[in-house]
């Protein structure tokens, strides 16, 4: 990549931009009470929340991969009436206030919800207040990141490789597995990481849809929120952990998520 001497105006504006983002984070760090940090972070509640957060976010990512990759494939490859509308509908959770998303999830999968009612009546399955509910909530808000990234990867890949594979005798499934997927692997990876990071930070939809029970649905962001009420120093410490994990992901990815997104 060629570098360039940046114009002063740009540097100034960009510096203001960076400061705008970095100062609040510095603020958080400056308010943390490092003396009690170790104790706060290794308390059973914190560890339980951290463990649950990992389980929920990873499961949400897996679910998003399972449902999202086929969805992205259809968006990228199959033109059908109303595709734009459907795609917009499935992108909404990215920008909807998560609390509204949580309420909507209740209306669909809650005990009185459109589907939830049937699930309860027929199988006795209830989703809210379970870890499964937390996973669903996280998937709901995070999956659009994956779908968009994978769709964009599929659109920019050279489809002629798939043609080549077909003339070599590969059926569509084999083509997908052995050619398409390896070729869009960077996008899938980037999408999954973004999705994971978003799921890790999910709060509003989870608390509304799945509730807040330590060990079952109380993920790290919920623990942060609860701690904010009474022990802000713990909340700040937990936030910093969350922040550190996300930051680590974003840095480890470097240009990946950029290329993919």
């Amino acid at each position: 990549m060629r570098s360039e001497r940046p114009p002063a105006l740009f540097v100034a504006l960009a510096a203001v931009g960076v400061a705008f983002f970095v100062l609040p984070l510095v603020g958080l760090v400056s308010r943390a009470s490092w003396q009690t940090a170790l104790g706060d972070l290794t308390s059973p509640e914190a560890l339980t929340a951290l463990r649950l957060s990992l389980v929920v976010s990873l499961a949400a990512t897996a679910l998003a991969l399972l449902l999202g990759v086929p969805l992205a494939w259809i968006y990228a490859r199959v033109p059908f009436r109303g595709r734009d509308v459907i795609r917009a509908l499935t992108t909404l959770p990215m920008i909807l206030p998560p609390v509204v998303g949580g309420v909507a999830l209740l209306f669909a999968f809650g005990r009185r919800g459109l589907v939830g009612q049937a699930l309860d009546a027929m199988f006795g399955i209830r989703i809210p207040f379970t870890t499964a509910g937390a996973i669903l909530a996280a998937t709901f808000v995070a999956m659009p990141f994956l779908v968009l990234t994978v769709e964009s990867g599929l659109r920019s890949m050279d489809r002629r490789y798939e043609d080549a594979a077909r003339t070599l005798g590969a059926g569509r499934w084999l083509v997908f597995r052995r050619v398409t997927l390896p070729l869009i692997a960077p996008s899938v990876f980037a999408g999954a990481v973004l999705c994971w990071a978003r799921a890790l930070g999910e709060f509003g939809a989870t608390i509304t849809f799945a509730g807040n029970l330590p060990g079952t649905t109380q993920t790290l962001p919920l623990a942060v929120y609860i701690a904010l009420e009474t022990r802000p120093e713990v909340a700040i410490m937990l936030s910093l952990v969350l922040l550190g994990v996300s930051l680590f992901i974003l840095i480890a990815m470097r240009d990946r998520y950029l290329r993919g997104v």
Partner: protein
Amino acid sequence: MLAARVALRLGTLDLDVTIDAAPGEIVAVLGPNGAGKSTFLRAVAGLVPLDRGRVEVDAVVLEDVALRIHLPPERRPIGVVFQDYLLFPHLSALENVAFGLRARGVAARDARVRAGSWLDRLGLSEHANARPGALSGGQAQKVALARALAIDPRVLLLDEPLAALDASARGSVRRDLKRHLASFAGVRIVITHDPLEALALADRLVILEGGRVIQTGSPAAVTQRPRSRYIADLVGVNLLRGTSAAGQVAVAGGASLQSADAVDGEVFAVIHPRAVALHRARPEGSPRNVWRGRTSALDYQGDRVRVGVEGEMPIIAEVTPAAVRELDLAEGGEIWVSVKATEITVYPA
């Protein structure tokens, strides 16, 4: 044997092409950009559905719109070498060649052995484990060829197999390609817009323009009797169209030529630039066709110079650099042109 009638519309392209090829024949499909060459190839391979038509290989119908038959690409006995080769970037050369065998259910180990022997045959065993990114253009082309041949197709389609190569590498790769094509027994169709490539590789040429076949025949026949500006330009001859009567050809623009060939009616007339003589003054003697013009462009081509002459009958002449000096040719200068009647080939349009 391949018998294909391919008719379809795609964007602005209206393609309707019929091509038959006997086993062992090498057919070159030649045409300008956007003529529909690649689309034709994709249709034969099953990658683009036909609107009308039928594709048959060795008496097996692969596609027939009327009968609602459409075999998907993976079930056609057709190997394709794509433009840019399209080697899978995440697989090694060997894995690329083995891909088709694996897709056809050959066991992994077996497929690798057979792929390896294909690479051997093309002199690429050293590069078996190289990723496509690490191969030169010529090597990549050979791997693409091995990959297409490894599935033992009845028909081999090649889309501009030399276009991705550097000019200086093209000659030797073309010679190798020719040798390897010769060792394949089925039908081979080579798509190109380079006449040298077509002439060097093919037994028969099919000229495509605007989605239609406008001429077909042996390389010699096509180059000697071009039926369109496109081919005449490629071959580098002057092509005129006119009406012939009693050895006198009236060409568009009012001028008239004498020819030794006796064909009447609508005709094409071909004059090789070498047969066009240039003179400072009006020439005396045998040439029957003499006219005046103005040089418009001098085009040096190594040991020859192509001179464009404008006037009532625009024409291109080919002379030596020495002649340019002697005649003191300069762009825009006046010049006399003569062509012997025997140097004008006339044939029905």
